[in-house]
């Protein structure tokens, strides 16, 4: 394959070649980063919460006024929910995974420690909580009814023991000694022993800035009693919709002086919560597709023009014995050279753009695999786009050489 005539042809069409090269480079830079972001966001939207989401729904309850018998009302509500035929279990709490709001606190492993060892989400639940959510205990024990206290938004007493997630246990006590060690949360001088470790329980927040402590959670054994609280309910298999209807009806039957702000299944909470992330992924995908299309058309256009410009030359080559295949290869090689330069430039641009985004936004660094994938896509794109004009060039008759201009 003779490179020299190709290079000299490109030198005469410098600007056109540069335009295509730049287009491909920028396309590559955008493609790499976009694919990376798409992948990240979709991965985020698929993070497991550690719960049996398919069977769960949550009711956000708010009492009208400030009743003094909140404790009795809550206990009545929970007992009633548990007796419903379509309900397997339920408990009262302040927040739950996928709620997008809740309690976040600093955790220390020594009394009166100034800097927190970790940040974690705090959940409240009674002895039915693990069963309701379907959490897997990997060490220690679940709460017993003797452990359970009662608390509202403030004035929480010290818990006799807490359950933490495996990830938090590893973070706080990397030597594996978490079980029966104490942690300090609300009271810096009074610790609470870890009595159990569950495999996974996610934080309530689904945003990128909460991602760092997504798997760090602490469960304190309390029935949550407050003017505003939530009931997490586990429906019997395949009875979710019926359970949701029955639960609402039952609660209003017990006491109409309340507002059920939200009654949503965990599946719905997940969809709503990650809507913006999925939306971004879709938007970026559309833009990538459009980008690829525009660049492809540009390559087709400019290559066709070069073919037209060099008609006579091509005819002469054919007259001198070049096969159709040789002509096609000539143009494909030309395109490959430009594309390769564009790819190199594009990878550099992609890295630079990513570094800038890492420093300006909450973004992770681009893995090389995306750069490689992007480069392959761009090179293939170039070759495919140049194919049609190249085939047209190959069909130029050798007879053109004999005609003068």
């Amino acid at each position, binding site marked *: 394959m003779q490179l020299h005539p190709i290079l000299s042809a490109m030198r005469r069409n410098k600007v056109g070649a540069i335009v295509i090269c730049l287009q491909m480079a920028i396309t590559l830079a*955008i493609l790499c980063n976009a694919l990376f972001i798409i992948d990240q966001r979709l991965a985020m939207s698929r993070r497991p919460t550690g719960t049996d989401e398919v069977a769960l729904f949550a009711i956000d309850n708010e009492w009208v006024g400030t009743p003094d018998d909140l404790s009795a009302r809550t206990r009545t509500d929970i007992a009633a929910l548990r007796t419903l035929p379509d309900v397997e279990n339920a408990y009262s709490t302040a927040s739950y995974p996928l709620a997008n709001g809740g309690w976040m606190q600093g955790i220390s492993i020594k009394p009166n420690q100034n800097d927190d060892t970790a940040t974690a989400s705090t959940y409240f639940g009674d002895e039915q909580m693990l069963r309701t959510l379907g959490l897997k205990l990997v060490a220690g024990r679940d709460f017993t009814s003797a452990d359970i206290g009662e608390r509202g938004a403030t004035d929480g007493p010290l818990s006799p023991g807490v359950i933490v997630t495996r990830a938090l246990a590893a973070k706080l006590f990397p030597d594996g000694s978490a079980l029966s060690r104490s942690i300090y949360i609300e009271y810096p001088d009074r610790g609470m022993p870890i009595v159990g470790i569950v495999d996974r329980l996610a934080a309530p927040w689904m945003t990128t800035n909460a991602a760092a402590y997504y798997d760090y959670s602490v469960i304190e054994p309390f029935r949550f009693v407050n003017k505003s609280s939530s009931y997490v309910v586990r429906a019997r298999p395949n009875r979710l919709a019926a359970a949701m209807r029955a639960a609402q009806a039952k609660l209003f039957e017990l006491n109409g002086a309340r507002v059920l702000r939200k009654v949503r299944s965990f599946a719905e909470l997940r969809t709503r919560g990650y809507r913006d992330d999925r939306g971004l992924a879709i938007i970026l995908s559309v833009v990538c597709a*459009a980008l690829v299309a525009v660049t492809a058309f540009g390559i087709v256009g400019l290559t066709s023009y070069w073919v037209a410009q060099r008609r006579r030359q091509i005819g002469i080559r054919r007259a001198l014995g070049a096969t159709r295949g040789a002509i096609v290869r000539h143009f494909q090689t030309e395109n490959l050279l430009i594309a390769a330069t564009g790819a190199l430039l594009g990878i550099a641009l992609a890295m630079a753009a990513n570094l800038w985004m890492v420093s300006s936004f909450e973004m992770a660094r681009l893995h090389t695999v995306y750069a490689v994938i992007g480069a392959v896509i761009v090179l293939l794109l170039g070759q495919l786009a140049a194919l049609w004009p190249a085939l047209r060039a190959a069909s130029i008759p050798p007879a053109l050489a004999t005609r003068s201009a």
Partner: protein
Amino acid sequence: MFAYYLGLALRSLKRNVMLTVLMIAAIGVGIGASMTTLTVFRAMDGDPIPQKSARLFAVQIDNWGPENRSHPSSDGLDSMLSYTDGLGLMNAHAAHRQTAMYTTAMALTPSASQLKPFMVVARASYADFFPMFDVPFRFGSQWSAADDAAHADVVVITRELNDKVFGGTDSVGKTVNLDDHEYRVAGVLDAWSPLPRFYDVHSSDKRFGKGDDLYLPFTRAIDGAMTTAGGMSCKDEPSGWEGILHSECIWLQFWVELPDAAAVVRYRGALNNYAADQQRSGRFHWPPHTQLRDVRQWLIYQHVVSDEVHILVLVSFSFLFVCLLNAMGLMLAKIVGRAGEIGVRRALGAARGAIVAQWLIEAGVIGFAGGLAGLALTVLGLLGLRSLLSESMIELTRIDVADVGIAILLAVAATVLAGLYPTWRATQVQPAWALKSQ
């Protein structure tokens, strides 16, 4: 001559329809993408209260000290205040107008018994809130300073709430039942939705989503032990409502109106004096650390324009750049292909300027058509965005006359810019080529 060149441009575009369509489509798509994201960006980044944004200030004060930081921010200050500081600053009365405020959730029980009780978001503030933020009234007016002092059972409701509960009639003097108490309606607001909701940017839903449903006196809310719905950060676990009020938990927003630069200087001084007093009394163990930020500064500090939008704007403008490179390449091909005609025109007496005019105007025509196509795509794009993003962003997907103008201008300017190099190449065509190309 302009009309002549316009005619030439139209003929030239008709001659090679495929090429023209490709170019207009490419530019249209680029403009569509850019304008879609730019519209959202402008809505997010705009000044929500331009007539006053330089006179309204958010107050910040460090009440946790250099050793305790809840969320790291660029200057170590948080966006909320404790009750002690909020009340202290209100009592100091160092500003022309001022208000401490927070939001709380309440259950409204409509008098019509068929309607079930529903939740409303209430903003607890002082009467100054309404003149400070230029809030328009439809019926009645805000409660008085006396009402603030008396912790009165009075509310101001929004137009939407008034429509829902009172059917849109003048409800001044009527009462609403909130959490088993009756509150007298002092005023009904007209439609008011400054975006972004600069005075409450703590949660991303509130910035652009649905606003507050009603307003009640701050003093009354404190009396009623109404806990905040807007988030609270505590250093130590508080004990009961009184505990919250006396603790260093931060949960209030504090805004002041300062009419001129001298007032700003005076207020900064007063703010620092207050903090110095806290240090003297032993409550703070660090020197005064306070800050005043006007609306624009506040919005930047709060990163109101989300990262996602920044990324999308970048991506779409890079996309536009690629489209323009495309257009440039195609224009170049077209011009070099028409070198013969250019040579003839030059031979017949066209000066270089005439060639420039002819081809730049052609680029402008393509740009204009691309701009129109781009506008159509922008409308589609915004509709698409609306369905993809959460409700809190819907307000941002409205297009106004300015956006239309920007789209067309951007399209024409960008295409003409892209056409500069090809046009320069056109002027390089020597008139002698008309003879030589035999």
